[in-house]
């Protein structure tokens, strides 16, 4: 068990877990209280279209994913706000499906098998690279800087956007910052741990934290701690049981979610 920590890949996995947990806790909290959990799924799946496009054009996959995930998050925001007033979940479903389909077509147009894309869908904590870690660390810094600096605006806009606007807050800008950060975090997490992990870690720790805290700041801290505990616990358990860590982490998260609901009632 302890000797596993001497492997470079295990060290990387632990660092990746810590870095992901910070982003998940902070951004996941905002996603959950804005009732946009589905956005995680929509952005992650739609970015498959970006990966396909990058593959087709011979661009770096990360570039395609960032482009399309940003477009999806901001697009959902734009369609479901202002005078259009589309239901956000409908907009999310539309982007979700369209992005996936586009990805499939692009891969088909390029022809052949795209093993790279598979790692984005079913990525593994055990194969993260140094570059991934540097990127994740930088993104964490950006998240902490922006969310820390704009905390009162982000809270107010999430709670009562109309009132915030009346008090002079630039609500559209604040919302775009939130959506863009969400997109970036999702792409980063996908690169590190794959699509399914993203959905679990962005929503479950925050959802559980919400049950046991009464303010956003504490909810962010608690969900970061929970995300970290789940990741490290899952990694250890997976190592002992010789199972894929991603799946074990998600199962642990799911168990925590259901148990919390039972305990809370």
């Amino acid at each position, binding site marked *: 068990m302890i000797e596993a920590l001497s492997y470079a890949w295990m060290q990387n996995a632990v660092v990746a877990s810590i870095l992901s947990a910070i982003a998940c806790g902070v951004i996941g909290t905002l996603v959950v209280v804005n009732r946009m959990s589905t956005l995680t799924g929509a952005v992650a799946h739609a970015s498959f279209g970006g990966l396909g496009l990058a593959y087709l054009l011979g661009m770096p996959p990360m570039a395609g994913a960032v482009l399309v995930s940003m477009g999806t998050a901001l697009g959902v925001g734009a369609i479901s706000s202002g005078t259009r007033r589309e239901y956000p979940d409908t907009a999310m479903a539309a982007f979700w499906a369209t992005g996936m389909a586009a990805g499939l077509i692009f891969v088909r147009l390029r022809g052949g098998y795209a093993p790279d894309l598979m790692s984005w869908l079913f990525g593994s904590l055990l194969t993260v690279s140094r570059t991934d870690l540097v990127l994740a660390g930088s993104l964490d810094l950006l998240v902490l800087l922006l969310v820390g600096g*704009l905390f009162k605006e982000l809270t107010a806009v999430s709670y009562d956007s109309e009132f915030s606007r009346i008090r002079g807050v630039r609500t559209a800008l604040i919302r775009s910052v939130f959506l863009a950060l969400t997109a970036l975090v999702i792409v980063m997490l996908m690169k590190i741990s794959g699509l399914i992990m993203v959905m679990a870690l962005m929503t479950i720790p925050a959802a559980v934290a919400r049950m046991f805290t009464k303010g956003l700041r504490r909810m962010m801290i608690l969900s970061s701690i929970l995300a970290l505990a789940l990741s490290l616990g899952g990694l250890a358990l997976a190592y002992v049981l010789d199972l894929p860590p991603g799946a074990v982490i998600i199962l642990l998260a799911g168990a925590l979610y259901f148990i919390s609901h039972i305990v809370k009632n």
Partner: protein
Amino acid sequence: MILPVKISGLSAGYRPGHPVLKDIDLEIMPGDFLALIGPNGGGKTTLLKVILGLIRPMSGTVRVFGRSPGDETGRIGYVPQMIPGATFPVTVMEVALMGRLGLRGMWRRYTPADRLAAIHNLHLLGVADLAAEPMDNLSGGQRQRVLIARALAGEPDLLLLDEPAASVDQKTQESFFNLLALLNKKLTIVLVTHDVGAVSSYVRTIACINRVLVSHGETLPAEAVARAYGCPFELVTHGVPHRVIGSAEGSGDSGGEP
């Protein structure tokens, strides 16, 4: 004189070609305590949103403290019509602090002065002891009072309240209207309500809105006209100047009843 609100020839609504409000002329004097009454769907909330700059006029001009709506940031306190059942992990104190948003720029934290203003107004509304409670744990009436404290924390010169007494019991209502009357010594108040009987002894003027302005001021309390537009004129106690804002459709003198 710079009026808190000066509206002329206003048409406004949500869809082009379908104004909810038509040809509204309304001046609100400094120190006024105006009750805005009228039937459901008459456009009371819409009028407040125009004043707040949330809805752009289709035509006409709106001036709030001599400026365009939305430009006078910080001078209006707004208590929105309650959203029932909304849940959000935020404490009473944090909500009250939001009233201070306009006074602190982006990237700035709330200051001790902000906290003081927030707690002072929570105290004024009798909910200071709940400051650390989550909003979700409050009753409808308590929540409403927190929202009023939030509006007051911004130190507004004009306070707009959209049916604030709707989820408050009779006794609380009276002390609440007394509080408003007290606040009215320092600021202009517009109170949307459909219970004009309850407020008539507190307010200075009453305007009835049902899509357009029909008559205005003390000179023309045309009861029949008002009735025709669904404005409960008989409830208005005597001596209060009325403004009647009536319906765009139908003609004013078809009301019949004396």
